[in-house]
């Protein structure tokens, strides 16, 4: 095995955050409705509010490290950000590289298609093209369904995928229900609806491996805000649906 270890030499991350009185959170602000800009170009979205809540509870100043899908992880690995709150779904493969906190939300994904399209089950999707955001867990899940004979069109992010659906490049998408509904809002002539449930993923806060104290504090904070219902409220505000019952506080 070819391994290259690069110097650690850093104080405990939690201490340095508290000392700086500032937390740097890696968030992609171009993936609505988790991270986006409102009409006055202020950051908003469910992940943004979660991050804001966390900073407030811990009494820290908040700095968003703007990132793209591809650079969310390198940002924390190289210490340019402290944690990631940016629709990270938990998989075993990814857990080899970074640590995940307990889940703070879940993501229900469906296959959504043009309303007029007659799709009831997987068989109807044969030879249809499904748009997904590249490398997301939806993408991985669909890619592994080799027997289903789907065609997958991968876009760099959800927004491009939605744009493709709005403009008519694809008639089916694999993404969250919120986004599926959004397509019809942008173009009433092309209203999409959820047709087949895909999977439910856990979303968690990502951090560098080997920071047990920070992890502990994060998990405690998540447990508390699940119990008091704040995380559920944020989720509902942006996604229009509630979290699973055991997470509603």
């Amino acid at each position: 095995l070819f391994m290259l270890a690069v110097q650690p030499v850093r104080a405990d991350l939690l201490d340095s955050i508290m000392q700086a009185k500032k937390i740097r959170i890696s968030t992609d602000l171009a993936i609505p409705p988790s991270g986006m800009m409102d009409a006055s170009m202020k950051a908003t979205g469910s992940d943004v509010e979660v991050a804001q809540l966390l900073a407030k509870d811990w009494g820290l100043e908040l700095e968003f490290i703007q990132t793209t899908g591809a650079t969310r992880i390198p940002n924390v690995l190289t210490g340019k950000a402290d944690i990631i709150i940016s629709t990270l779904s938990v998989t075993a493969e990814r857990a080899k590289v970074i640590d995940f906190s307990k889940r703070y939300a879940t993501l229900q994904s469906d296959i959504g298609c043009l309303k007029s399209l007659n799709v009831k089950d997987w068989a109807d999707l044969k030879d249809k093209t499904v748009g997904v955001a590249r490398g997301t867990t939806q993408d991985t899940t669909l890619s592994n369904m080799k027997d289903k004979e789907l065609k997958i069109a991968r876009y760099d992010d959800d927004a491009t995928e939605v744009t493709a659906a709005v403009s008519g490049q694809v008639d089916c998408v694999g993404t969250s229900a919120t986004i599926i509904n959004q397509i019809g809002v942008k173009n009433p002539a092309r209203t999409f609806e959820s047709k087949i449930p895909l999977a439910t993923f856990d979303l968690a806060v990502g951090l560098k491996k080997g920071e047990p104290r920070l992890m502990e504090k994060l998990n405690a904070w998540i447990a508390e805000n699940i119990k008091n219902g704040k995380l559920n409220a944020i989720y509902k505000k942006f996604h229009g649906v509630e979290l699973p019952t055991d997470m509603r506080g």
Partner: protein
Amino acid sequence: MGIELDFPAVLERWPSFLDGAILTLELAFFATVLGAALGTLAAVGRRSHSSLIARACKVYVEAIRNTPLLVQIFLVYFGLASIGLKFSAFTVAVAALTINVGAYTAEIMRAGFDAIPGGQLEAAEGLALSRLQIYWHIILLPAVERVYPALTSQFVLLMLASSVCSQISAEELTAVANYIQSDTYRAFETYIIIAVLYIFLSLVMRAGFWGLGFVLFPRRRRLGTPL
């Protein structure tokens, strides 16, 4: 603890990298062939006696050369779909790359045309060659020979630039890399690997163009003038 690079974890996906590299080469190949043709036409068009054609060609060249490829790709991809034309991502990618490299080719070819001495044209006219024959034998072929190095560099740049086609769901090398790195979260390994692959691809392309030039330009070969 620091960062550990684990190349085998990423390299085990070599079939995907290979597919991506092949698609990148295919994109580059088709866009090069079609773009060379389009660019040559545009360069000829700029010398047209009809000022309408000449101006249209100029607008095309300037509009493309002064805007980023990514914007052009989005406009073609979403624009075509908005008016109800649906093509595969590959088709759209080739079309957008062709339009892009065509403009650069046109500009390079124009310089080649301009460098043909006037005396050559008069000599050809004096031999009773037709306009078309003059264009082919006396203008086009020598111009291509003259600007061949610039053209080949442009086509290698095109291959590198084709990485933005990942944005419209073409599964070329960068798309594959993005998929693998978000699946494994091993970004460094992935990016280092595709850097090496791109360097390799550009060397392959240069070698290919060198060989092509060797066949196409017997004079260079005979006189040992480097391409």
